[in-house]
């Protein structure tokens, strides 16, 4: 059970056993090779590689990669740990960020997966994975192959591209009692894009997610074995063509879901008595804080790595949504000017601060 380190300024010829001796790339760590029970801390920065997983963990001893946003275990400074399968941030086309075949007991937490047009994790016949606390621009997961069991995807955000799925459970043969879980995730998509798409896999639990802007929020594409179900509870699903879609009524028992502003709330589900159609009425205070010149970063600010920062454009505005003057002589795209001085915490003109994932009006 060894701890390894990866970071900018490293060298894949290093042993990787300390921050001073860090590897340069995630593939450099993977190729050591890592072993069951090992942990790999990855420092802030952009990693332009497609990670090929070579090794499995074991029950109780997963191999864990941690994007060290706080910097506590790497450089002491921290920042976003971005993995992108492209050398060109101008291009939409990306390679998959990660590929695995028959690799089990793997855990990833704290990463930004920038897969854009591709898939963050392309996994074929892999079991006992945990993806926790990651944000994906692109498709998060394409789970393929004959049998994959016990995937947990939680506390993550996916902004999925048109035509793909945020999370795809897709198998070539019927899989029963998969015990996959998707919980506490924010999934957003677009045209011909599905939130959670399932083919031939029973036993998936989908709970406490917010699922917005999809063709289908959740869809079961292929009839399950008789007696198999997908359990869907406590989700907010809105602004989709169809919220939840099943093949036959008994396959998706669902309850305590709020499905609203969809053309069809549900089709072929077994709806419980406690689901409702209440509009979600999401908290808009970040918007008013921003309009008042607040220092908060919103979910729609550009990142420092965005190629849209300081690109000259026609008909530029002179102030952004916050009312702040545009920085520099060039113009950015979108309503929110990138400003490195903005933060995710601290005060604003309206006295908001961030507690957990919610904006709270600060009385103090």
């Amino acid at each position, binding site marked *: 059970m060894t701890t390894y380190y990866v970071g900018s300024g490293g060298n894949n010829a290093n042993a990787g056993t300390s921050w001073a001796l860090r590897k340069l790339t995630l593939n450099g760590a993977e190729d050591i090779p890592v072993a069951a029970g090992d942990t790999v801390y990855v420092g802030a920065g952009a990693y332009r590689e497609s990670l090929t997983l070579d090794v499995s963990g074991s029950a109780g001893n997963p191999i864990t990669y941690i994007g060290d946003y706080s910097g506590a275990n790497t450089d002491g400074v921290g920042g976003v740990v971005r993995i992108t399968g492209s050398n060109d941030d101008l291009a939409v086309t990306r390679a998959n960020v990660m590929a695995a075949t028959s690799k089990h007991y793997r855990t990833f937490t704290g990463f930004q997966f920038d897969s854009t047009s591709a898939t963050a994790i392309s996994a074929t016949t892999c079991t006992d994975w945990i993806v926790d606390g990651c944000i994906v621009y692109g498709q998060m997961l394409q789970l393929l192959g004959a049998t994959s069991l016990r995937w947990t995807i939680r506390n993550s955000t996916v902004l999925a591209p048109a035509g793909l799925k945020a999370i795809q459970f897709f198998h070539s043969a019927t899989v029963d009692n998969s015990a996959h879980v998707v919980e506490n995730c924010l999934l957003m998509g677009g045209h*011909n894009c599905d939130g959670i798409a399932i083919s031939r896999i029973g036993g998936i639990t989908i709970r406490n997610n917010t699922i917005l802007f999809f063709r289908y929020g959740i869809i079961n594409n292929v009839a399950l074995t008789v007696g198999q179900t997908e359990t869907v509870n406590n989700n907010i699903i809105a602004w989709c063509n169809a919220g939840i879609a099943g093949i036959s009524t008994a396959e998706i028992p669902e309850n305590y879901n709020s499905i609203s502003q969809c053309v069809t709330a549900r089709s072929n589900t077994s709806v419980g008595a406690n689901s409702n159609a209440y509009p979600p009425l999401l908290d808009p205070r970040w918007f008013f804080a921003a309009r008042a010149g607040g220092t908060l970063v919103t979910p729609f600010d550009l990142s420092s790595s965005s190629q849209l920062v300081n690109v000259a454009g026609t008909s530029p505005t002179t102030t952004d949504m916050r009312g702040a003057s545009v920085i520099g002589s060039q113009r950015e795209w979108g309503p929110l000017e990138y400003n490195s001085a903005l933060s995710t915490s601290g005060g604003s003109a309206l006295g908001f601060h961030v507690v957990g994932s919610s904006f709270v009006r600060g009385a103090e």
Partner: protein
Amino acid sequence: MAREVNVYTGQWTNTGATTPVPRWTFVARFEWTDDAGLPHSDERTYTFPNALNGIPTRRLRGYMETIIMNEARIARGIGRDPDA
């Protein structure tokens, strides 16, 4: 429009096994709650392509062009099979 619309479909039957064009039937049940909070339901059998007869050309054109253009994009490698 409505507060909530739920749809239940089933009994899909291929009736075009011996015909040169696809034909099928299915049963659809709509359950909805209107803006006044009143529940409604309706169930009927639909047949393809017969069910297209009553659709105005201006709407049918939009639906069909979407399908045709999606398939054209897939054929050129610039579109994705949405169900793949």
